[in-house]
């Protein structure tokens, strides 16, 4: 394929993904408010549009129009850079997530086949781990550049928390890689296509149950989401590392938290819940194009369910204290992930010898 075709394809895919992600992030703010309201026996925002649908527009508009206050002694370059890193990293991780299988358009008798992934790198999962490690910079730099002791403390606590849980995240990913036999994300999703015993879908949550639990807990800690909410908890440190931010920079942090949540859900779906695999879809007898569309729909539905899980857990359990959090990360999650790798490896080895 020539360079212009590749470039156009890439730009269209990137444009679509960025647009959809930003819209979904804005509406996720509203979704969280509505879901939390329903859990608490009340209606959420319902004045601004039907069912409050224009509330996101109002929120983003408010953040644009607010004055951008920067502390006098703050390092202005770093102060501006930190939220950009946070949001940029959260969205970059979407580049390797497969939304669906190949999709084929037939326009004017010519078949155009596209792979529904922005970047088909052969290191797949390693890219995701690298990006989440970069995400720590956003928080640390924001805490440091605010010239405020309490923001610094919040930033340091957040980065310590994120670093501790990245280890268990990486180790649980090794379990998935052992089962799928490849680092590439599209191959991991292809490997989740069959059925156990004829009717249980071969999603990685079945063989890797404890790996899934470790990964999900580590995702909660990576995205600074309750119960691991200490760095940004209001009663703890005013607002933690984003105390000194206002206006659109705060908006970027705000959106970055939800974008991280979407990314974490997308990665959990891809690695453990079968990605875009829709079980039993071959019995419906649809045309290949409709199957591709249905698979994209399945991916979106699974991501939505995982995001709902994130939101409901936030309103269900109380926050961890910092020492309990570190205890959990190093003394419980890390040994569990290591044990997961050992047992997975043993089972695969024994399978090879038995067959």
């Amino acid at each position, binding site marked *: 394929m020539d360079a212009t075709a590749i470039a156009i394809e890439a730009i269209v895919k990137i444009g679509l993904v960025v647009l959809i992600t930003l819209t979904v992030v804005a509406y996720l703010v509203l979704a969280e408010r509505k*879901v939390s309201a*329903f*859990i*608490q*026996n*009340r*209606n959420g925002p*319902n004045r601004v549009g039907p069912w409050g649908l224009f509330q996101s527009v109002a929120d983003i508009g408010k953040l644009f129009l607010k004055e951008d206050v920067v502390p006098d002694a703050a390092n202005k370059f770093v102060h501006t850079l930190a939220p950009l890193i946070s949001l940029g990293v959260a969205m970059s991780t979407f580049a390797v997530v497969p939304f669906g299988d190949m999709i084929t358009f037939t326009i004017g008798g010519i078949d155009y086949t596209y792979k529904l992934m922005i970047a088909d790198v052969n290191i797949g999962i390693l890219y995701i781990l690298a990006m989440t490690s970069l995400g720590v910079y956003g928080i640390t730099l924001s805490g440091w550049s605010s010239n405020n002791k309490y923001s610094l403390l919040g930033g340091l606590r957040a980065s310590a928390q994120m670093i501790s849980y990245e280890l268990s995240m990486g180790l649980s990913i090794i379990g998935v890689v052992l089962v799928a036999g490849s680092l590439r994300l599209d191959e991991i999703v292809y490997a989740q296509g069959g059925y156990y015993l004829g009717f249980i879908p071969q999603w990685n949550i079945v063989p890797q149950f404890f790996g899934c*639990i470790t990964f999900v807990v580590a995702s909660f800690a990576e995205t600074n989401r309750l119960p691991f909410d200490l760095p940004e908890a209001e009663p703890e440190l005013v607002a933690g590392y984003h105390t000194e931010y206002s206006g659109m920079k705060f908006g970027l942090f705000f959106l970055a938290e939800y974008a991280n949540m979407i990314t974490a859900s997308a990665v959990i779906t891809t690695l453990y819940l079968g990605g875009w695999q829709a079980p039993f879809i071959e019995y419906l007898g649809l045309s290949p194009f409709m199957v591709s569309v249905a698979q994209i729909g399945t991916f979106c539905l699974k991501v939505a369910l995982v995001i709902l899980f994130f939101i*409901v*857990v936030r*309103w*269900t*359990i109380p926050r961890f204290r910092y020492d309990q959090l570190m205890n959990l990360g190093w003394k419980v999650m890390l040994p569990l992930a290591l044990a997961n790798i050992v047992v997975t490896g043993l089972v695969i080895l024994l399978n090879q010898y038995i067959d």
Partner: protein
Amino acid sequence: MKNDKYLEPSKEIRTKDLSFWQKMYVPEILKGMTVTIGQMFKPRFTYQYPEVKFEPASSFRGRPVLVHENGTERCVACGLCSRVCPALAIEVQAAETDLDKERYPEKFEINMTRCIFCGFCEEVCPEEAIIMSNEYELVFNSQEESIFGKEKLLKSVEEMKARLDFLRTMR
């Protein structure tokens, strides 16, 4: 000291250990989530305010009103409410009248920005002339509007029946 028995930690400490499944954390979280998600399907208690207004019970202390029977206010301008008001919100000016009660308030003003809705004026009034209604919606556009004179305060006995019955039976 040797005999400070009450300062020693007690040797028998009864603790309730977590069961095996509770120590696993995850089953407990899932149990919690069934409660949380279950609440999503229960009825919601929000009043959609401007369309549906909250009607308080007769024991609610809303804004003070003066009671009138057939156009004549019951107030005899004794000044007790003005004296007892903790926020100094009431101002009364007495004058003579030919009715049996002999006194009537020529000027009766309550400064609603000072009123704290405590109900002392209602408790001290010997004539049951000033009572707390159940209105809570007060909006003014200027400071002059916030000083309520007699025309804004007078309400008939029939309108205030609920509160008057409450005062008769409960106080």
